[in-house]
């Protein structure tokens, strides 16, 4: 199964790139999405089959946390694959450009699943660096001046960050030279043998490196640019899956600290950066002029919340797992809908968009409901995860932190809600040129994601709950 996940998208992408045929492109994209759905479903029902060389199994493995993140990635990938069809139609791309897009997207997905499933820290690093390289071309896909600037900042800042993460990995191997292995399982089993000094030094580097990729403050410089300049389905993938993949790596590294009983050190760093990210997004949220950048800052906020969740240890980890799912799905829905708005108004400026309910009420409703989901209005699961985090603050004795946490979260919600309502209601701008409404498959992915979120929020299926609990238990 692992070989299917890793190689089939790349092969499909190559076929699309060689044949340059519109129908083949679409088949390649959708069939890879379908394959991912089938593999995720098969893993959820413990159905496994192996056709590939055994050595791959040493390096890649569907563990609980990996499968959880992989399933989230599958949902986001399928949504943006379907939405990409609308993107092709809207931009009337040539078959050649379409095939380039498909090949880049599929290789991006493939290396991302490699990063999620890798069992070796250094191999994980290789795949994370590869995600930077494959996605940079996607960010520059529209070939505008601004997208070039965004792509350059992204590839350069992330490459430097990831290079520093590699320094951290080497430093970790200095501290763990008796173990002489960088497989997560070996590191966990022999965590107490790792020299605490080198472990802490390595954490500083790995944290900065992966933190750059996750986009937490103060190392978030690339994130708003890249998310706002990429095509909407790619922005959804960047925010909904790429940040998660890097985050999972950091979670696994935190696992080493927990096994080595050194988590006080790392928790402190997680807590500080978490709050700093919340602060940065709260400050910027009130003065933004571009709605895609607003979504990007919301990603920084949510990554901050995840970091705060990790810092609370066993009290916060379940909330973190729930938040990862809820954030990815809501943000994907928001980014895809922002593609509809961009299509209708031909502008990313908040001031150019108003009266969305009059121009296209379905987009308007999805935009509002997705916003309600991301700021954590019940019954959506982000409400639950934030609530559990506040509970975790009390349980871990840091109840005073509830005040800044709530304050910053409310500022972000206020800023985002105000902007979304301003765009949805009001009069249609005078210079608005009516165009055809988006086709139905530009709405379906968002509606499906919102229904999933609604179901998880109202009555979480027992299987999902157990699975999340297992994934969380992995780090306890």
């Amino acid at each position, binding site marked *: 199964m692992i070989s299917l996940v890793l190689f089939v998208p790349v092969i499909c992408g190559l076929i699309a790139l060689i044949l340059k045929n519109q129908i083949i492109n679409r088949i390649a994209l959708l069939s890879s999405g379908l394959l991912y759905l089938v593999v995720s479903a098969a893993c959820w029902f413990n159905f496994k089959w192996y056709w590939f060389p055994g050595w791959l199994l040493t390096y890649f493995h569907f563990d609980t946390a990996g499968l959880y993140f992989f399933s989230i990635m599958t949902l986001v990938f399928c949504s943006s694959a379907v939405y990409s069809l609308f993107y092709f139609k809207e931009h009337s791309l040539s078959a050649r450009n379409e095939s380039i897009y498909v090949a880049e997207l599929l290789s991006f997905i493939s290396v991302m699943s490699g990063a999620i499933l890798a069992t070796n820290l*250094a191999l994980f690093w290789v795949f994370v660096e*590869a995600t930077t390289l494959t996605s940079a071309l996607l960010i520059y896909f529209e070939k505008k001046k601004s997208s070039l600037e965004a792509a350059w900042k992204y590839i350069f800042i992330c490459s430097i960050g990831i290079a520093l993460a590699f320094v951290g990995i080497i430093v970790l191997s200095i501290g763990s030279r008796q173990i002489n292995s*960088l497989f997560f399982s070996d590191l966990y089993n022999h965590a107490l043998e790792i020299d605490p000094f080198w472990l802490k030094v390595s954490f500083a580097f790995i944290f900065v490196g992966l933190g750059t990729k996750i986009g937490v403050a103060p190392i978030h410089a690339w994130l708003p640019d890249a998310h706002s300049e990429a095509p909407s389905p790619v922005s959804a993938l960047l925010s909904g899956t790429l940040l998660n993949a890097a985050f999972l790596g950091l979670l696994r590294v935190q696992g080493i600290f927990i096994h080595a009983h050194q988590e006080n050190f790392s928790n402190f760093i997680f807590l500080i950066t978490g709050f700093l990210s919340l602060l940065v997004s709260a400050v910027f949220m009130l003065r933004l002029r571009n709605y895609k950048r607003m979504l990007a800052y919301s990603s920084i906020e949510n990554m901050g919340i995840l970091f705060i969740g990790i810092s609370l240890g066993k009290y916060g980890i379940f909330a973190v797992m729930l938040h990862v799912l809820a954030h990815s799905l809501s943000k994907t829905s928001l980014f895809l809908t922002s593609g509809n708005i961009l299509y209708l108004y031909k502008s990313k400026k908040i001031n150019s968009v108003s009266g969305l309910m009059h121009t296209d009420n379905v987009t308007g409703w999805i935009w509002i409901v997705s916003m309600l989901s991301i700021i954590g209005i019940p019954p959506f699961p982000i409400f639950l995860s934030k609530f559990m985090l506040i509970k975790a603050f009390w349980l871990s004795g840091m109840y005073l932190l509830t005040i800044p946490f709530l304050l910053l979260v409310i500022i972000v919600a206020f800023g985002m809600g105000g902007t979304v309502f301003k765009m949805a209601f009001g009069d249609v701008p005078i210079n608005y040129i009516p165009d055809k409404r988006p086709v139905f498959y530009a709405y379906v992915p968002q509606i499906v994601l919102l229904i999933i979120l609604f179901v998880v929020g109202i009555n979480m299926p027992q299987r999902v709950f157990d699975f999340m609990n297992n994934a969380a238990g992995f780090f306890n």
Partner: protein
Amino acid sequence: MTNILIILLGTSMLYVFSVSRIEAYVKILSLQGFLLFLLVVIDIREINWVNIAFLSIETLVIKAIIIPYFLLRVIRRNEIGREVEPYITQFYSIIIASLIFIFGFVAAFWAAKTNAGIKPLYFGVSILLIISSLFLIINRKKIITHILCYMMLENGIFILSLSVANEMPMLVNVGILLDLFVGIFLFVIFFNKIQEMYDGSHIDVLTELKD
């Protein structure tokens, strides 16, 4: 012998601080690649031909020949001569470089005292290379200099990995090399695009996106 090579590697970085002709940077980069190759060859600890062949190809063919040649061609085609005036002037950068050197050697002395099983001089010089390339990336304005300094940063990381006795699995080594290679390739593609779209090619032109 290895000590002389490693000191030469450190000194090459000092030279980078003092010159402003971009072509000189590329020559230094190529020299660093060659020195790394010598280090790898002299310092063979085990007879594993696959590993030796891989490391030789990585250092000699890719780091010392292909990448510098590729970058030199880009520089000549775009007629880039000198680095523009950096944010911190040459005089102060050399003072900062000396401080970084002192720090590197302090790190080497410290590493010699600990029993972490690392080679002190390798460790010190790698730290020196990493910090000074980061400083140069922050201080210089031309995008091509950033790419060159990124390569020097990678060289620093390579020496750091040599200072440790542990070895990575072959799959990981190949992955790292592939990433580096594709990375440089993409950097150059984007560099060419920036050169085409904007008049200059230093980072001051990239100011369209902000809040």
